[in-house]
């Protein structure tokens, strides 16, 4: 993972994302999908499926992977690697601050 730039972005309150689902955010010039896992964890990955541009934030997810809604390629939410042979996606460090705001950092233009 590259973290050339340490810029931080505040995306908004975490309860904007329903549990188990994801929402897409425009961060800098990138689209980022933030997943709120059922165990409360957060994951942030690039929102665009490298296979044919599918909207990953619309995909079904579990604790480990998201499945793209268009052709069912799956991606590990921690590593960005595809478990179905698609090219990998970018993952971004993400956390919640004291007022429950989603903060994403690193690697963004």
């Amino acid at each position, binding site marked *: 993972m590259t973290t050339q730039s340490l*810029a*931080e*972005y*505040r*995306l*908004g309150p975490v*309860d*904007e*994302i*329903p*549990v*188990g*689902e*994801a*929402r*897409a*955010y*425009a*961060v*800098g*010039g990138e*689209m980022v*999908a933030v997943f709120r896992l*059922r165990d409360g964890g957060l994951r942030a990955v690039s*929102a*665009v499926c490298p*296979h*044919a*541009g*599918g*909207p*990953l*934030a*619309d*995909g*079904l*997810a*579990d*604790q*480990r*992977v*998201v*499945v793209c*809604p*268009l*052709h*069912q*390629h*799956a991606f590990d939410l921690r590593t960005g*690697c*595809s*478990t*179905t*042979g*698609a*090219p990998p996606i970018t993952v971004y460090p993400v956390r919640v601050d004291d007022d429950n705001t989603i*903060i994403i950092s690193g690697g963004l233009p």
Partner: protein
Amino acid sequence: MHTSKPSERERLVVVGNGMAGARTVEEILQRDPDRYAITMFGEEPHGNYNRIMLSNVLAGVEDEAGIFLNDLQWYADNGITLHAGCKVDKIDRKHKLVHADDGTQTPYDKLIIATGSTAFVPPITGVHRPGRGYHQGVFAFRTLDDTRNMIRYARDHERAVVIGGGLLGLEAARGLQQHVSHVTLIHAMGHLMNTQLDEPAGKTLQASVEKLGIEVICDGLTTEILGKHAVTGVKLKNGRVIDCDVVVLAAGIRANTELATTSGLSVEQGVVVDDQMRVAGETDIYAVGECAQHRGVTYGLVAPLWDQARVLADHITGRNLDAAYHGSQVATKLKVAGVDVAAMGLKEPELDTDETVTFAEPRRGVYQSLIIRDDRLVGATLVGDVRKVAFLMQAFDRGLPLPEERAGLLFDLGGPPAEVSAAEMADDAQVCNCNGVCKGDIVEAVQCGVKSVSGVMDKTRAGKGCGSCKGLVQQIVEWAAGGEVEEDPAASWYVPGVPMPKPELMEAIRTHGLKSVSSVFALLAPGGEEDAKSKMGLASLLKMMWGAEYDDERDARFINDRVHANIQRDGTFSVVPQMKGGVTTPAQLKRIAEVAEKHDVPMVKLTGGQRIDLLGVPKENLPQIWADLDMPSGWAYGKSFRTVKTCVGSDFCRFGVGDSTALGIAIEERYQGLEGPGKMKLAVTGCPRNCAEAYVKDLGVVAIEGGKWEIYVGGAAGAHVRKGDLLATVDSADEVLTLTGRFLQYYRENANWLERTYAFVPRIGIDVVRAIVVDDAEGIADRLDAAVAEHVATYRDPWQERSTPVTPGQFRSSLPLTVLPQVPVREPVAAAQEGRA
């Protein structure tokens, strides 16, 4: 066996992550998993995939995901360091290091070169554009990326020319037919596949290929690619010009020896190796696969690579230091562009005393020719009918004496069965030519306790290439298991993440009172782990079982069911208002037209289910469009009851004997939105002329003379075509309504996830279905009726969610891909704080 710590192991570096490189590593791990610390380099940015299957990917019959042999997890699981997307550009033999283009230097104790081949580019003017690589619209057919690019480009173009009439060219031509309307194949030689086939065989193949709509030009030497910015055509030596906008080069391959040459290894046509696959003059460097030249021969098919991989693995792990490769008999059995072709040994007689036996049936596209020397088979060519190939291959490999009556080699003369039976086959007879699996390997897998066909296929890979040997694999498994073949257990699970067949799963859900998808995972999945791919199936099942009591967790729904519209390829959605029985009114039509205009709907289309589809609606506009339409949902998206198609029936049609329209509307009104394991499409037609196509629906109703109705179930006219089976003939529309509900409920309760009625009904058997649904043989009819009635009572139009979204951001866009970005743009914190201050 070495049990050394990884850090103390010898270092093995493999350059080339293709079919030979990865296979060799697998063979090594099988023999001694702890011997080496392995590092692999692959120029392609992927894991290891089955190159043979690219033809299927191009033809659209196989998903990219389905062709991967080893995903990245495999490398991790086996402790292999993989540098994917990374080219090795030099081997420093003196210091035993490989230099890669990512700047790394990796030391090795042993090194394997498996760099494969590259496409051969004939000297044609205009193939390359200075500084740009291939001319726009010109493609090679070698890698997954080539295939992807070709598909992407071809989709928007019309006419393709394929240069090269060998195996690859034929496959490319066939595949391209999926994407363009016209394909021409240009071959420089006199007949197709001239290296493997004699002339009559090549001509027979040509006729079969032409029947598929591919234009074939033999003796055609391409000299120039025309077009300045994009391809406009190709020119042949005789001056003929063929218009086209896509060109695919499939004119052969050349061993990829660049790295070996730069590094000073011995290279002729390929990297020269000895019988242990060791590079000539080296002690610790080996080569396998298409890049290797053994006894003057380089091979361009996979079967020889498996032989090489086995020998190299035996040798390098010290398992069998005497292992030696003596070259491969090349016997090919392929499906080329849909035509069966097999070739082995000589293609034409060489000596005056060679005997040839030929049979030709041109109209059926069959040509067979055998070459026999001293009563032994030394060559065979089969096109169009390869039923006898298993026996011929054995006879060829082993030099078996042939029967007096030669015709017996090609035909069954009332004698032994067409195929060698599993019992008769020799242990080392190769069954799967794509993956190099022998009968013995299959038998061994069964003896090691794998007793299902799919399990054996996973373990040995037999049948996972072109698939032409699947039947034989099954026979061998059955024979080896002595009739104790097991069904793959996972194949019977309702969803992949919960190891239970549907009845057990329902039982467990009921016993524990599990009303949400997450509670099912927590209690019934191994380790309590969620599984994304199982969520939809469970959501559907729970909704069916609990009705209004179901705890509806929105993250378990597919996006279609979260926003009640059908996701399209560009991430927009399509909206279909209900139009019961296909009947509409001028007022409704006006409203739809106005809404379509107001929202600039890119396409308005009549669907196959007699409704109007508004295509290309962005997610965030859905609530407004529904509000403007103010009509109920037509359920065009879910695994659910969809529509009832009707004909005009007795109201207007002069043939009509029943009021199909009224009955269709009544059915749709009653069962709208019913979720199920698959979608349910229905139809009612007013007489057996069947204008509404009721015979090919999940449930179809046909009016017949005397006020009666016939009910058909299990029909289909989509990816599968099947005429439904007659369930019952009844006297009234009311009975149709009752039996329809009862059948649908029975299907909902008993079908596997995603199993449509066309598979479900034959699986259960129409007699059993009829006994239960019509004759109430199990005494459950009342319960089924009550269950479906309960659904009817709780029905609520999902489009009501437009005014009160159920989750935050339910309709927020996920895809501002084209016009970035439509969701609020966040600035970096610093900037944002300034803004606030």
